[in-house]
């Protein structure tokens, strides 16, 4: 139930535990192999899990077939994705604060206020139309800002690609989510359900782009790993390797 703003002692204790667990997880991060392109010491297991995930994806999303019927028609799906993302905004705002990034924290807070009211519970996104775009973040990024190493690349069942640091972040985010702390069952269960549905519908929405990586690549694991890590580094503001055209020995 929203409204019970008194955070009881069990929750405070739970937060303390989370801080300890995340510190342990991050300090246990696997160090990169010198000279390797990716920090992927669990590649064999990762590839096995990836194959399972692709099989599941094929069952759920049709494996790139054009005649696959969508779960929900596009406008309904878009509304639900918006609701799910709006429910994730308090967590974004909290993480922005934890990263000492005040402007994104303010943007996310304003977005939540505007979209929850004018946007009718987040179905619509009037905040973006005002130029207040989502500043998506997570505890994985917070850990990066605090100086934790990335650790190894991992592929999790169903959830897909991540890193040791991002996995620790996901675990912590599930517990410190302000909405989760302020709600109880059954509301908290509905929130979890909507967020999960949002993920499924996002996979449907970006179907073609995802299909092309998973089903049209010669080595979809290698392709997914490259895309995930490069895009994640971009989000985190980690400087990327630049390909210098004059230094390519094979193309000059």
């Amino acid at each position, binding site marked *: 139930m929203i409204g019970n703003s008194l955070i009881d002692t069990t929750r405070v204790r739970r937060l303390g535990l989370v801080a300890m667990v995340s510190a342990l997880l991050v300090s246990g991060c696997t160090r990169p192999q010198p000279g390797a392109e990716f920090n992927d010491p669990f590649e064999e297991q990762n590839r096995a899990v990836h194959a399972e995930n692709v099989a599941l994806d094929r069952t759920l999303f049709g494996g790139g077939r054009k005649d696959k019927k969508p779960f929900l028609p596009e406008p309904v799906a*878009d509304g639900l994705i918006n609701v799910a993302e709006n429910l994730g905004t308090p967590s974004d705002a909290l993480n922005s604060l934890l990263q000492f990034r005040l402007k994104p924290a303010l943007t996310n807070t304003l977005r939540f206020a505007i979209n929850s009211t004018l946007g009718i519970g987040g179905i619509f*996104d009037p905040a*973006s139309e005002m130029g207040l*775009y*989502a500043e998506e973040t997570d505890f994985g990024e917070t850990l990066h800002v605090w100086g934790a190493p990335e650790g190894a690349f991992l592929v999790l069942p169903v959830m897909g690609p991540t890193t040791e640091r991002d996995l620790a972040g996901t675990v912590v985010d599930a517990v410190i989510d302000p909405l989760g702390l302020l709600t109880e069952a059954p509301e908290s269960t509905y929130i979890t359900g909507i967020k999960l549905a949002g993920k499924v519908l996002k996979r449907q929405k970006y179907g*073609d*782009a995802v299909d*092309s990586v998973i089903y*049209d*690549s*010669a*080595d979809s694991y*290698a*392709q997914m790993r*490259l*895309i995930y890590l*490069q*895009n*994640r*580094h*971009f*989000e985190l503001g980690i400087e*990327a390797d*630049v*390909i*210098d*055209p*004059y*230094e*390519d020995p*094979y*193309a000059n």
Partner: protein
Amino acid sequence: MPTDLTRRSTLGLLSAAAFAAVLPGRALALNTAEARELIERAIGEVNAVISSGKSETQMYAEFERIFERYADTRFIALSALGPAGRTASKADLEAYIKAFKGYIARKYGKRFREFIGGRIEVVDAHPLKSFYEVRSVAHLRGEAPFQVDWHVFEKNGKRLFFNIIIEGVNMLAAERTEIGAMLDRRRGDVGALARDLLRAG
């Protein structure tokens, strides 16, 4: 007056030296404005195609033409292929480059199709290492704007782009991975790779 002239030419030399120090190691015939202009023209043509209402097949043909005019597709093909290009026969290599050009136009053309109703806008250009980076922002319907960088160089007197980086994802790096995996599957046979690329993408 001679003193004035000397002072002026000394100043001129000094500023030339300062300018040279700012430039990357290689002498660049290309400048920031020209790199920016190239990408603005390329984007202008991409935007025109995605709003033209042509059929998918027609669009891919148009994208291949745009790629051919504005990108160094030969460089991209050879860079993606890597060391195998050195040992392949000339006929196999040329067949591969030709097939790669169509493949890349189809593959990225499919992605550009998602830009229908949206637009791409150049926001900045600056020197990077031995080349130029032109930064653009893609505005798609119902999405937060995202960053697309174009890497431009000059070769044999022609200005061309050789890499696109979409939200950090590097096209050349992705194609090296993809072509490398395809080649492994065909036990390093560039001729077989060329034949299969005609259908890929």
